[in-house]
């Protein structure tokens, strides 16, 4: 009985959003009479953090504290159109739409404040803590609350904004495939270390070390959520998951979570993650989408690590112990790459 260790690497990029049919999202932002803001979307939060990311983007753009913004998702009577939460588009597309809406609302807010302070709107700035002040003369300031009250009851202004972000349809050349598939790309490199049992074919992932380039980490904790959860799913895709264990034969499919294999809490490994930020020129504060790409480098990195450990290539997913064992038998046993 022998267990062999090996490391494998993969580098990948990922296109943000879809290029088919045009890719729009809209947002509405408005203030209530006391200077608290609502964002209305039809976008979906399915765990990725749509509500939270757009909330921070809106607060940053308005220049108010995040507590003063609340995001309401997915009511077709109140939320304007959004293509949906897929294709890693939410942060980028919806984020941009929210920024545009918040900019419009901010402009009205600053005009209303200027009228109250009897200065030019251009001379004003937000302090990010709920007040608007004259640049260079901080003692001359007014709270966003008072601005909202004034706008509503004295000036008759709506502190609100509409935003849309549209990536227009990219025609695809049928002959050459020339197209604009995405406006920006996220990047990653992941190194996986595995241990392979050469008697049973069982593979254990021991460690992952990765670097993900995300444009801008709008919220590092949400980025961490995606990268940690996504790399778990990547390992799951690499070694465990299939609803058709004998594909393309359709027999013996799982019908519950006992039969559908995924790594359990006892199958985790340490994951050392580094995050790089090269802002996307068209991203909200440079942000790209990471919801999908986070899993992708794990699959090949694990496959390459298995080769490094025992010298067999498994080119069919998932890399079950059975496939590894068959391959080991076919090549007459393990041959760690370093020894070859």
């Amino acid at each position: 009985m022998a267990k062999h260790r090996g490391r494998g690497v993969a580098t990948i990029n990922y296109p943000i959003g879809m290029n088919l049919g045009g890719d729009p999202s809209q947002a509405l932002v408005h203030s209530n009479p006391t200077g608290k803001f609502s964002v209305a979307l039809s976008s979906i939060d399915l765990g990725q953090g749509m509500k939270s990311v757009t909330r921070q983007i809106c607060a940053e753009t308005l220049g108010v504290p995040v507590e003063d913004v609340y995001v309401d998702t997915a009511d077709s009577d109140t939320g304007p159109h959004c293509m949906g939460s897929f294709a890693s588009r939410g942060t980028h597309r919806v984020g941009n739409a929210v920024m545009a809406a918040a900019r419009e609302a901010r402009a009205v807010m600053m005009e209303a404040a200027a009228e109250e302070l009897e200065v030019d709107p251009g001379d004003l700035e937000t302090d990010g803590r709920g007040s608007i002040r004259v640049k260079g003369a901080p003692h001359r300031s007014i709270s966003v609350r008072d601005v909202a009250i004034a706008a509503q009851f004295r000036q008759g202004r709506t502190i609100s904004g509409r935003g849309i972000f549209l990536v227009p349809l990219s025609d695809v050349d049928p002959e050459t495939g020339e197209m604009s598939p995405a406006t920006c790309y996220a990047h990653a490199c992941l190194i996986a270390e595995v241990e392979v049992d050469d008697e049973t074919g069982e593979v254990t992932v021991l460690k992952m070390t990765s670097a993900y380039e995300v444009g801008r980490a709008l919220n590092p904790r949400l980025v961490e959520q995606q990268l940690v959860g996504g790399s778990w799913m990547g390992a799951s895709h690499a070694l465990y998951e299939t609803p058709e264990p004998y594909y393309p034969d359709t027999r013996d499919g799982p019908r519950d979570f006992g039969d559908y294999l995924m790594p359990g809490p006892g199958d985790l490994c340490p994951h050392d993650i580094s995050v790089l930020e090269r802002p996307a020129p068209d991203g909200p504060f440079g942000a790209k989408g990471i919801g999908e790409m986070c899993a992708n480098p794990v699959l090949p990195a694990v496959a390459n690590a298995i080769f490094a450990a025992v010298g067999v290539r498994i080119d069919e997913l998932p890399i079950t112990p059975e496939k590894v064992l068959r391959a080991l038998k076919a090549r007459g046993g393990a041959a760690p790459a370093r020894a070859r």
Partner: protein
Amino acid sequence: MLELRKEIFADERDDNLKEVGQPTQRQDMLGHVTGTSAYYDDHRLAGLLHLKVLRSLHAHARIRSIDDSAAARAPGVKRIIRAADVPVNLNTLLSLIQFGKDDEPSLATDVVRYKGEPILGVVATSEHAARQALDLVRVSYDPLPAVFDVEEALKPGAPSVNAIYPKNTFEYYDKYDHQKLRFGDVEAGFAQADLLVEERYQMSPIEHAPVETNGSIAVPDTNGRFVVYTSTQALFFSLDTAAKINAMPSNQLHFIGGTVGGGFGGKVDTLTEPLAILAARLTGAPVRYRLSRHEEMQFGSPRGAERIYIKDGVMRDGRILAREVRAYFDSGAYTRLSSYAAVKCAAHIPGPYTIPNVHADVFCVFTNRTPSTAMRGFGVTALDFALECQMDKLAVAIGMDPIEFRILNAYRDGDMKAHRREAKNCALIECAQVAAEKANWPIREEFRRMSSRQGGGVTRTGGGADRTPARVTPAATTTGPPQRVAYERPAAAAPAHPPPPAPPRSAPPAAPAPAGSTHGAPRFSSVFGTRRR
């Protein structure tokens, strides 16, 4: 265990921000930990009815007859929903953006094309009653020949899955049975190459497995409108699809969702909303249609499997001259979103590398299995698996460190990509450098110095298809393989032959690649087809 490397690309960022970049608590977290986040099913409705569908027992069959008389009389049953009850019983999801032909019925009419295809619905006072009534429906089938393998499906004489796509392939631009990508001249590239490496890769189908299964509740509202609580990932996508199938003006539908128990792509297909709304119209009562876990596992659309063939021509100095890809996306019985996955796949070829000659054909193929759909990274995840396993094999074949090999070929700002757009805002090299540093994976100084910015430590001539291959300086020359140093590294993917013990900078070219390489370009092909039995 997350480190922000702010010093990298710092010159391209304004970090003077107040809210963006803060580790702010999620807006929805308090609701999650107190069990008060409201998902689509967290509504108690008086007189709620329940819809379950009868599913085909055959992968491909003609329906001779359906006898639902006993089911209609079963206790608790309020209504049987037949194909004829569906106002517009043919749709394709992407018809909303004029892509593809309507090819999928909500309830099968004359033919079933996959095992588990919905045939008929039962609306009853409880899920239990609906399930029991389904056991009383008698369907007689004439089984038809079925096809399950993407390449078998393309052979002449293969069973036709759907007359709408008689060749079992999605039709691109009313013209081709596949998506093309053409850049440079791969044959010329192969002819110049020192080595050709040709391999086959197979992705698996994957179940999204969100802990909350697909579902929706349609509630008759005042003024003839319907409120629909839904688990959809795409609110208006589902609303417009449901409106089309029910032949209703979209403003008669009020969709409410936004808090969803996981999706991963499996909640775009609008599997439940159209029939839930139809059932609510036909009964005048609120109706819930939710997939059981078994249905979700076996009949909820999975990630589609792709079979990918890659042929590369590579030089011993590490330059990839040409890459040819043939990919088959297993769409299952209907299109759903797979036609787009093929386009996305083609656009992603040849990966984040600058290769002067690229040729790809990507097919969206119909088979008699559960229709596949979007899943986290679809069109790309499988290709990345294939490309990165291939990159590893290439590095081994030419005896080059796999990270240095990737950095060498990585795209830089200004490089022309195969889909004829300039690369910009690239960062692959920096990711590789940081990961290598963190993992103590030694790479040579010149590779640590390279960058994704214009040029990025390699000199390139020309641009686009006619451009001659990358030249590497100073790491490699065109006359021999790049000089290498011996590494102390625990079993990293290593050369196909032992590296020379720390050769001086003026070392002779390393030993040639494995057997056969001396006689022209050796071919490596898949060792394990792992065909079962």
